[in-house]
């Protein structure tokens, strides 16, 4: 007797194998899996949107109507704006959708302008102001590296003001300082990018292993059947071409 669990496991394994088959070549089963994924993802997004609407607006309006119509009546405005977003399909009234987008853009930008100056700029600068002298040589060395690499990388991104070397003339001391910091910045960023790249590889490989353990290994027959189907879908067009 085939249960829904087994059917689900077969479907999972088939989806994974068919999507991975694209790594070799585009094929019929990859296209099928891709279209299934897009349909499910779009449906899932709409379901999440309905869930949000339900939580924020519809449920309070149905379960506690008195409170809703006295304190939260203004939620009708974004709901109307949201409906107006469908006006984008009209050639004549497409501009009505802009009102809803304007609210979203403004709220997002307002939030960003409140948090970014502190989180991205002030805190980063204060975190770089560290003691450069002290009793512990390891901490002192680390602090020097931290400051020099930060200033160096900032120097690397300084495109507007930098000391130039005049033709034939001896470079100024400021020029040497700038060049030194510039190279420290490059080397520091190379270390950062190396670490970032290594972490990216590790994350993807970790994902691959977990996918194998969760979806492919438990129903290995499903994996084998899906792989054979994908192989046929890849090979058939090649044989036909020959």
């Amino acid at each position: 007797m085939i249960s829904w669990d087994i059917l689900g496991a077969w479907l999972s394994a088939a989806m994974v194998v068919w999507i991975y088959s694209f790594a070799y070549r585009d094929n019929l089963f990859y296209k099928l899996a891709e279209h299934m994924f897009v349909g499910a993802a779009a449906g899932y997004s709409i379901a999440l949107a309905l869930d949000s609407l339900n939580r924020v607006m519809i449920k309070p309006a149905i379960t506690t109507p008195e409170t809703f119509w006295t304190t939260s009546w203004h939620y009708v405005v974004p709901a109307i704006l949201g409906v107006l977003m469908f006006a984008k399909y009209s050639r004549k009234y497409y501009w009505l959708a802009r009102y809803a987008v304007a609210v979203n853009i403004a709220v997002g930008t307002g939030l960003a302008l409140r948090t970014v100056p502190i989180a991205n700029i002030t805190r980063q600068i204060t975190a770089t102001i560290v003691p450069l002298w002290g009793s512990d040589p390891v901490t002192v060395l680390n602090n020097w590296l931290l400051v020099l690499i930060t200033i160096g990388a900032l120097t690397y991104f300084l495109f507007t003001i930098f000391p130039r070397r005049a033709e034939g003339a001896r470079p100024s001391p400021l020029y040497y300082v700038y060049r030194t910091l510039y190279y420290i910045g490059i080397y520091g960023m190379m270390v950062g990018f190396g670490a970032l790249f290594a972490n990216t590889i590790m994350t993807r490989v970790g994902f691959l292993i977990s996918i194998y353990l969760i979806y492919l290994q438990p129903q290995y027959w499903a994996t084998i059947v899906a792989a054979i189907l994908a192989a046929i879908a890849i090979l058939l067009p090649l044989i036909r071409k020959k």
Partner: protein
Amino acid sequence: MSLVIRKYIPQLIVSVIIVLSVTFYYIYINDSIAKGFSTADKALSDWAVIVTSFALIVGGVDILRFHLTKIRREGIRQAPFSTVTIALLIIMVVLATIGWYYSYADPKAGITITTQPQFRWLYSNLYAPADSAMYSILVFYIASASYRAFRVRNPPALLLLVTAVIVMLGNTTIGGLIWPGFLGLRDWIMTVPNTAAFRPITIGAGLGTIILGLRLLTWREISWMGRRD
């Protein structure tokens, strides 16, 4: 319609909300104004959630329209695939709506939009594995990218390779078996040079965000309005 309601009023809405939102966050006048701002701020966040929800629904309708047009244009070659997409989209939405209905009709059953059993089955057995596979398929491309990135052409490239190898060995158990110091070295790389190298990039991204905000505020950034009038 005049340019004012088509273009200038939406831009004015953006500017007014940004100015009020930032001003009252930084400037304290008195308790009642601060409280009023806090309430209005929460309401505006909810407004954004409601509008975003509608935007997601519009996105779903876009996909539906796109595939219907594709079927009409490309015919039988594309029809099976687009039909699968449309069918799954509709099935997911219908199942979510059934869950929604039961959340009111029979609240004790504990069924909601996202916990409807068939919806969950499709999510767990179709969407989740496909999503993970789509994300991890990049590992195959990263393999070839690594070959190109890790070729030692100059001293900075050597540094990139050495750092990546140390971090990878520090992240795995085999690294600890080869030399226990890899773990400490990886931690040092992540806390000192890595933090320092990404700090200016974070500062740059922050400055970029502020500049984008100022451009929106001063009506210089108008790409969000879509087609030109």
